[in-house]
């Protein structure tokens, strides 16, 4: 009758806590990830011939949110990254050395990322994975930059790169500006929509850049009059009643609504739009990727989101489907967002650059990463230049929800992306 899993998890947590107190360790990491790390490390030790000398391994750091509210966002990135490291180690490692992970839990506190970076770099990490958000990743990435260590992230903000952090910071994502352009071009060219309305959640930088890019590209394509209006809200606004009533009062109903938001405010906004009888198509960027929230809007239809590949097994690219099938098998859970493939591709990229550089030195690896020209990675062709450490032209998958079910519509590359 009752689902006892939550109770059990609390029980396990306190068990672990008690145990940690007794053994003097205190890090509330996810049990399975710890187990996974242990297995990876143990496997690395075995492959290295039983006598794991320090020179046989190379360390990378994970300074991620293993606990707290950001944990679900980072978890799939971590799992994807671990899959990449397993694959690389199985294939003989990087420059003949097995990868060993040292981890630090930032407990969903951005500032602790700096402590984490110091901690893992002290332990010898030559590259560090940071959370997929500029505000969360930046504190640690600045430390890594100063130490000459490569920072890897899925932050969709061009500032996580040369301009914002420095030449050793790389993001695997498509920039928010790229996602806004993809949606505008797709809506105009493929769907034939001619008028739009933007609803912007002003809380975080990503959604601001996303809507700005959409508005600009949309006006270029459809004309200035084709944007019937725009409105703003905050993610923690208990209601967007006034915004919804305003759309309902427009003299002409828009063909589509561009919503730039994230959970929990985003799903709440969609629910309120639908409850008020606004059944227009709703488009959004990667921040609302995933089907975990769809229960909040029963029978959600005409919803479109760009992401890094369909996690429900129908991506046009069979490699993407193979990746998520393997993710499901290894972790014994269905993927519910596309972020895992970012974690995988980050370490794929780093290992390839280190092999080519013949060194783990930050500057040498960065020089090789900057030579990536449509480098085929799991996430798709990836280009970095000495000035730009984030994807802008790479195609993304557009997912749709109809009757509460997600499926892939296809992949689309942007024609024109404005970064300024």
């Amino acid at each position, binding site marked *: 009758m*009752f*689902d006892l899993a*939550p*109770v059990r*998890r*609390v029980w396990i*947590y306190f068990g672990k806590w008690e145990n940690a107190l007794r053994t003097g360790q205190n890090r509330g990491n996810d049990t399975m990830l710890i187990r996974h790390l242990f297995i990876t490390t143990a496997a690395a030790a075995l492959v290295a011939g039983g006598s794991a000398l320090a020179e046989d391994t190379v360390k990378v750091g994970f300074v991620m949110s293993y*606990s*707290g*509210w*950001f*944990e*679900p966002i980072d978890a799939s990135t971590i799992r994807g990254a671990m899959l990449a490291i397993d694959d690389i180690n199985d294939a003989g490692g990087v420059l003949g050395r097995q990868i060993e992970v040292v981890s630090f839990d930032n407990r969903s506190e951005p500032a602790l990322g700096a402590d984490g970076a110091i901690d893992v770099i002290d332990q010898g990490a030559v590259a560090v994975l940071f959370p997929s958000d500029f505000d969360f990743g930046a504190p640690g990435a600045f430390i890594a930059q100063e130490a000459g260590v490569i920072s890897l992230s899925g932050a969709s903000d061009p500032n996580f790169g040369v301009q914002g952090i420095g030449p050793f910071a790389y993001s695997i994502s498509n920039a928010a500006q790229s996602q806004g352009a993809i949606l505008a071009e797709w809506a105009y060219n493929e769907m034939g929509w001619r008028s739009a309305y933007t609803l912007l959640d*002003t809380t975080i930088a990503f959604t601001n850049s996303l809507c700005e890019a959409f508005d600009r590209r949309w006006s270029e394509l459809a004309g200035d009059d084709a944007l019937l*209006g*725009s*409105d*703003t*809200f*905050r993610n*923690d*606004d*208990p*209601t967007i*009643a*006034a*915004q919804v*009533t*305003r759309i*309902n*009062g427009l003299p002409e109903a828009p063909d589509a609504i561009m919503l730039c938001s994230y*959970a*929990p405010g985003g*799903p*709440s906004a969609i*629910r*309120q739009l639908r*409850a*008020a*009888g606004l059944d227009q198509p709703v488009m959004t960027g990667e921040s609302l990727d995933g089907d*975990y*929230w*769809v*229960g*909040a*809007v*029963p029978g959600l239809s005409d919803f479109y989101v760009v992401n890094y590949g369909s996690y429900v097994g129908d991506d046009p690219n069979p490699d993407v489907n193979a990746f998520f099938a393997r993710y499901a098998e290894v972790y014994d859970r269905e993927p519910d967002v596309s972020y895992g493939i970012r974690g995988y591709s980050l370490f794929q990229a780093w290992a390839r650059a280190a092999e080519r550089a013949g060194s783990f030195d930050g500057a040498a690896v960065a020089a090789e990463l900057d030579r990536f020209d449509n480098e085929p990675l799991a996430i798709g062709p990836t280009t970095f230049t000495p000035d730009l450490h984030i994807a802008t032209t790479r195609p993304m998958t557009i997912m749709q929800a109809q009757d509460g079910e997600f499926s892939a519509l296809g992949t689309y590359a942007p024609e024109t992306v404005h970064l300024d």
Partner: protein
Amino acid sequence: MGSAFIPIMIDAFSVGGLYALTALGIGLIFSVMRLANFAHAEFVTVPAYALFVLSDHPVVVSISAAVLVAVVLALVTERAAFRPLRGIDPATMLIASFAVSMFIQRLLVFAFDSRIKPVNPLAVLDGSVALFGAQVNLLKLTTVITCLVLLIALTVFLKYTRFGLEMRAAAEDFTMSRLLGVRANRVIATAFVLSALLAAVVAVLFSAQTGFVHPRFGLQIVIIAFVATVIGGLGNLLGAAVGGFLVGVVSTLLQALLPPDLRPFREAFVFLLVILVLLFRPQGLFPARGLKERI
């Protein structure tokens, strides 16, 4: 304006009503024991999780369970966290309520993780009705009516029942009311139960609107309600209700009427009004008698 007027007013009143109920829940406890109960956020969040856990059951069952869970939680926190601190500096109690709030929030993260969980307690209220020639969302209308009914019921309770009389006496002068035979434990427990009942109603109405619950679910509404109790007059129940209502109505109207460029700064305007109120009436709009400085 014209046809948009009624929907906008219903929007404003439904938001204002939720804030008013929340502010009252906070005000009830503050008036009898001078505790600014920050854990009120969890009195809202936890019953909403009860709705999620029991979402496969009939609505009557899940809502009753949510109310029960809120009451039990309120009584347990009162007994375990606040009773041992009774009579101590209000600042200490405030910090204690922060601790309770954080503890329960973290517990929820461990039990359910921090992602949103779907709830739909009032699916029957999807849709709208015609009211004075405008289409009005049924859920919002229900919210407005429920808030009105509860406000009247609470007034009747406080004015015409023995418990109500005791609570008003305790709010005015706790020591004197004890000397006159009001039992401290009982009156405080009553305040917590009433506060929890209001929180459970807010949980049901608010989660029906958002469609989900998450560990910080109650916080977003309680923070605003705190501001409302302060401008209404800390310790005054009428003040709390009016303050909550005003904040909700004003912020909704600002969102509806401000020009687009100024809308992102809506909160700045709301808090500007709050500052003005406090400048001219530092004790709030309706100062509590028990809290006045007696020189």
